[in-house]
């Protein structure tokens, strides 16, 4: 049963060995003449400017998380709307409660100033 996979296994083994062997061979046999230019970080032919770690404003995080929260809200409403008649009043009340909870969080966010970009 498992022996049917032997060729696959052999091919994996050969592929790994070939890849490793090529890397080893080039790093052993290839000439190494490092110059300052070669060691520079390189981006599309132009010199890099500034640090690679930029500080992002935490405002982006707030916007992103609000988007996720209210996007998920929409995602829940679609299947509910598709089954609106089947779910009946129970489904309607459940959705009203769900939306009320979300409305309260929206009011909270608004009042706390999370929706204002400049503060």
């Amino acid at each position, binding site marked *: 049963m498992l022996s049917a996979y032997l060729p696959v296994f052999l091919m994996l083994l050969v592929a790994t060995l070939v890849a490793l062997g090529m890397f080893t061979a080039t790093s052993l046999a290839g000439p190494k003449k490092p110059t300052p230019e070669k060691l520079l970080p390189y981006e599309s032919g132009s010199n890099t400017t500034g640090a690679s770690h930029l500080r992002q404003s935490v405002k982006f995080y707030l916007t992103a998380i609000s988007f996720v929260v209210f996007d998920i809200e929409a995602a829940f409403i679609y299947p509910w709307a598709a089954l609106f008649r089947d779910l009946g009043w129970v489904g309607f009340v459940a959705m009203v409660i769900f939306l009320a*909870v979300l409305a*309260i*969080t929206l*009011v909270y966010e608004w009042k706390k100033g999370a929706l204002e970009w400049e503060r």
Partner: protein
Amino acid sequence: MSDWLSIVPLLLVATSGLFIMLADAFSKEKAELALVTAVSLGTAGLVAVGLLASGSALPPLPEVLGSYLAVDELSLFFDFVICLGGALSALVAGGYLREHELERGELYVLIVLATFGAMVLARSTDLLTLFLGLETMSLSVYAMIAFRRTSARAVEGAMKYFLLGSFAAAILLFGGALLYAATGHTDFAGIGAKIGSGEVEPVLVLVGMLMVLAGLAFKVGAVPFHMWTPDAYEGAMTPVTGFMSVAVKAAAFAVFVRILVVALPGEEVASMTSGWPPVLIFLSVLSMVYGNVAAVAQKSVKRMLAYSSIAHAGYILLGLAAASVVGEPAISGVLFYLLAYTVSNILAFGSLVMIGSRGKEAVDYDDLAGVGRRHPYVALPFIIGVLSLMGFPPTAGFFGKYYVFNAAVQAGGGFVWLAVIGLLASAVGAYYYLRVVVVMLMKSPAEGQVVAVPMKSGYVASALAMSGAAVMVFGLLPSWALDLAISAAQKLIG
């Protein structure tokens, strides 16, 4: 409408969470939110205890919720324990935030939401509600730890807890998936029935069970899943540490009990040769020994309490393991232990908050030197708290330990030796608990030492008075609470 009667405490907590959120957004005075939080959680707890004590039959839930949430005495008992822990923590937080000029209302919202999650977790009868409750609780708690966001320690603790907690949740989920694969059920009763019928792949069940147990053991902070505990407990503000060590732990143990009894009964999964009892014994012995020994070495009182909470998880796990043999006495012992532990721990952490005023927070044992002589009214609750944690009669902690160890002795066989190990470990524990008492009463502060000055806060004082009274009442008259625990355990086992 009477269908909803049994989850009224849960609904109360949910609505008060939303209300407090709005109140926080619209009010300037944040200290009153502590009172509102404590009163609403306290009301929910009292409703739960009223329903429990009235003994009336609980109507089944409507079909929408019926298979997801339990309607039984066990969940009402845990509603009470968790709400009590939440309400007292909120009161302590009210004093703490004002004293340390951290007054923001979010903490109270998070306390209520975490309490809600904990109640759902304790009530869950399905892997889906289990995960929902676990995440609602955990996410709120992660944020609560990081509440002091300028403190590197707090952020470190929250980050560690968050990363490890996510892994633990993933492991638990995978275990749940394996149980589902083996049995075709997500509800505990269905899983239990299918395993009992013997038509399951035992390997899948055992591996799934181990993963679920590992995830839960992480939440209760049992060795070897305890790595996050000292850092998270130390980094969090003291009231939050108190909340974590009581409400989170109680909820995790509640679902532990329910899973073991309902989903994993029977020879194949609940015997000493194959199943969870040896796993729990392993966790229990490691936690009891390691928690107590490591707590001795601590300089910081808060860190000592963190390690002691690991040791307490070990004692409770011993009771759970004994439940595989004796059933009801062990489970009621565990329930009583959790109630006693809740009030004692809040008393200890609340006293630690009370002793430290702004800039002069009591952190190490040395900071407590001389407090007993200078401020006896602050030292007294602390002493009662640590004596109860130590298991000194006639406090609540004594009876908690007594019932759990007694159940282990009743279970007979190797469990007697486990009880002996537990007793020896608590004897080690007596050293560091009594050290608090000795330092406060007998040591005078060193030359040039900053002496802790107690804060003046009615909230903290009333929380201490209530939990202190509870520790003494449950210690002097344990029968009332024990009867509730016994009837809850009997109903669960059926």
